[in-house]
């Protein structure tokens, strides 16, 4: 490996911050969900990078050697569940209010 760890972390950090910006600034609810996906992906990148650089040789086949990968798999699953329910909510709101703009969805404001 000739690429140092911090470069991977930097890419993940950039991805995470782009995700934050998308979530905070976009008006479209689907775009906000896409921002969340970016952030989850950045987390995964960090998990795998740390797994690759900090796991000692020979430990892989033993217990605990693939913790980073296992965590990443669970992040995938949570992301899938999140996007499924999130998009279903977007569709339900769109059907009743004909909008997917997050600001207009203020049913609870009374």
């Amino acid at each position, binding site marked *: 490996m000739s690429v140092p760890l911090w470069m991977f972390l930097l890419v993940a950090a950039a991805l995470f911050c782009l995700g934050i910006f998308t979530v905070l600034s976009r008006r479209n609810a*689907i775009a906000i969900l896409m921002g969340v996906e970016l952030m989850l992906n950045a987390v995964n990148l960090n998990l795998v990078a740390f797994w690759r650089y900090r796991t000692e040789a020979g430990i892989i*086949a033993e217990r605990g050697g693939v913790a980073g990968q296992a965590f990443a798999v669970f992040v995938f699953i949570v992301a899938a569940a999140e996007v499924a329910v999130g998009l279903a909510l977007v569709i339900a709101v769109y059907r009743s209010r004909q909008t997917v703009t997050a600001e207009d969805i203020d049913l609870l404001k009374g």
Partner: protein
Amino acid sequence: MPINLETIAFTLFAAMCVGGGLGVAVLRNLFHAALSLLLALFGAAGLFVLLSAPFLAMVQILVYMGAIAILILFVIMLTQQVIVPEPYNRQWVLGALAALVALGALFMVIAQLGGGDAPYLQPQPLAPEVSDSGIAALGSDLVDPGRYLVPFEVAGLLLTVALVGAISIARED
């Protein structure tokens, strides 16, 4: 950083990742933003390969690009608000500021780690006996009651609940 195939590939995939992420944040056309998300996810898959986790790279393509992205594209089509005159809300300056602050903070933390010369940052060679990059180990860990068995089954439950919930929310009746 020496110039070899690995660093070139890293640069390529990192550029895809960040460029795609940027596209998600700024593109006005929502469909293009979703395609840009695909690009970012593909870049991340490439980075997973470079990190010796080909299983995750393939899962990334299968789940994120093959399923989640298609779902997102579908909903974009269903809701037909693809190009809007004003893609950002009133607090977008605040959002940009928050993102920059977060980037600065993360950058400082990463700087604390030091450059690539710090000894504990040298990657460890994968053990020669695991030619499958730890997929079999992952398989036995996932169903090991002492390790991830409970998350494994709970993940299945979560999926079922999400499936049933999403379908009952999205259906017309």
